[in-house]
């Protein structure tokens, strides 16, 4: 549904988005991750046709956004960053206006507005003006506007920003539910959110894609992925560390904690040696040594670790070109 090829955007001498390509099909939820100023919003603004790209091609539902913007825009529902809304309009007036611009009149419009109001829980504030709304309601009003024409494509810039934990999880499950028959792009810098709702993730830094894959694939890139966490009673941690580091397939072992005769360690896998089952090897060693193992499990790898390791702060990487 969305196909982006070699997209770039320069603001003066600064390259905000640098040669990005990706695609999203129906039934997919693509998460955009990246530090602030990485180019997430700029990319979304180009996809939705708000700003023209410096170079590259964007096609939405088969229409080129630059050459044929109107039919492309018709297919998109867009929630911009900070969820803007006309301050002096009521929620109802605003949604009716959005429906009208989407070409809906009469009964169709009424139905569409009611549907969006139900979906975003806005009944209570329908006749309140937007400037008097709390941030959560304001956000949902703008989201309702994006959903009003039941678009095939949904682009959302930080859809959970400024919401309380309950609303966050509501929006997350809404995204997941809608992702079953829509193509969705959303940006966030909350990692659990991306992990929970996305089928694929792009990590973008300084305008470039630095990682692209399913959340599991990305997590596997973490140093921690496949590491074994053990808790053993009655053996000194130092001894355990020496023994565990010698397990074939282990890169090194690390002491996490030692308290009241209980030691907690993590054994990192040697990534250059594929295959093998580190957890089984560790368990077998423990059985041979007759250690009292209180707990043993395999770590999944953490997205935040991957994120940190590939999007280093400016001070480390030097200036962007």
């Amino acid at each position, binding site marked *: 549904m969305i196909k982006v090829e070699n997209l770039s*955007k*320069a*603001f*003066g001498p600064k390259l905000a988005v640098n040669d990005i390509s990706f695609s999203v099909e129906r039934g997919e939820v693509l998460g955009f991750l990246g530090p602030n100023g990485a180019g997430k919003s700029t990319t979304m*603004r180009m996809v*939705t*046709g*708000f*700003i*023209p790209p410096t170079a590259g091609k964007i096609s939405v539902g088969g229409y080129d956004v630059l050459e044929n913007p*109107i*039919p492309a*825009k*018709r297919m*998109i529902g*867009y929630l*911009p*960053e*900070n969820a*803007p*809304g*006309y*301050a*002096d*309009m009521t929620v109802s*007036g605003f949604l009716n*206006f*959005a429906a*009208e*611009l*989407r*070409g809906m*009149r009469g009964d169709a419009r009424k139905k569409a507005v009611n549907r969006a109001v139900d979906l975003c829980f806005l009944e209570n504030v329908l006749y309140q*003006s937007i400037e008097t709304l709390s941030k959560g309601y304001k956000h949902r009003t*703008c989201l309702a*506007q994006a959903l009003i024409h039941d678009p095939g494509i949904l682009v959302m810039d930080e859809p959970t920003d400024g919401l309380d934990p309950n609303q966050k999880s509501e929006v997350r499950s809404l995204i997941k539910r809608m992702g079953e028959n829509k193509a969705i792009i959303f940006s966030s810098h909350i990692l659990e959110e991306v992990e929970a709702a996305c089928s694929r993730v792009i990590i973008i830094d300084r305008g470039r894609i630095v990682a692209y894959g399913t959340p599991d694939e990305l997590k596997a890139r973490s140093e921690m992925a496949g590491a074994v966490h053990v808790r053993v009673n009655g053996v000194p941690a130092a001894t355990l560390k020496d023994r565990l580091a010698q397990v074939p397939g282990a890169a090194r072992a690390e002491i996490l904690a030692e308290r009241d005769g209980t030691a907690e360690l993590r054994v990192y896998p040697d990534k250059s040696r594929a295959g093998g089952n580190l957890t089984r090897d560790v368990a077998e060693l423990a059985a041979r040594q007759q250690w009292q193992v209180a707990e043993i499990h395999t770590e999944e790898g953490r997205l935040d670790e991957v994120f940190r390791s590939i999007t280093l702060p400016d001070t480390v990487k030097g200036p962007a070109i």
Partner: protein
Amino acid sequence: MSALLNIKAIMKRELGGYFTSPIAYVFLVIFLLLTGFFTFTVGSFFERGEASLVSFFTWHPWLYLFLVPAAGMRLWAEERRLGTMELLLTMPITTWQAIIGKFLASWLFLALALVLTFPVVITVNYLGDPDNGVIVAGYVGSLLLAGTYLAISCMTSALTRNQVISFIVSVMICLFLILAGYTPVTDLLTRWANPVIVEIVAAFSVMTHFEGFQRGVLDTRDVVFFASVMGFALFTTGVIIRNQRAG
């Protein structure tokens, strides 16, 4: 067809925006008070002893100088400040439809203000026997004048997210359009410059073109003048918005 419906939807929202905030009421009251003051006190309507609205229309270029930019300054500046421009321009409409819809809504609002001056027409008809054709021509001219100032305000409003800057810049441009053909100024200019040049400059002034309407003359050239300034200013608005989006 859908273009007209889009323009209509934008007009409706914009016009509603005037009346849901106090802007409309403040504007209308001040406009009517000032027209009354200028017509009857400064323009000495009664002392003239003639059944015409000359003292009413003479002041319009000066009155509009401040009031029209005040009505138009928010058109795009507000949209940029709130961030709703991003919403509006990612809707399946063209930028032109948005520009025209907003302009027409404000123009309609100014027309409403003008219509509300009807008591002055009744007064002059009650007191004497004026040429109502001249009065109609005056109203048409006044409406075109308001539209011209408004298109300029629309343009300056697109330049900035700050309404104050938008207001000041458009007052300056409108003031230039008045002064270029204001008799005291042109008289001064003829002392140094070639009268032909002075005349060319004066041809750009709204004063020169508004005069005919006041005398009851509907000259095509004057209508074309106002229409082309409006067209130019609105076109420039489109260019400004496009350039801003291109970054």
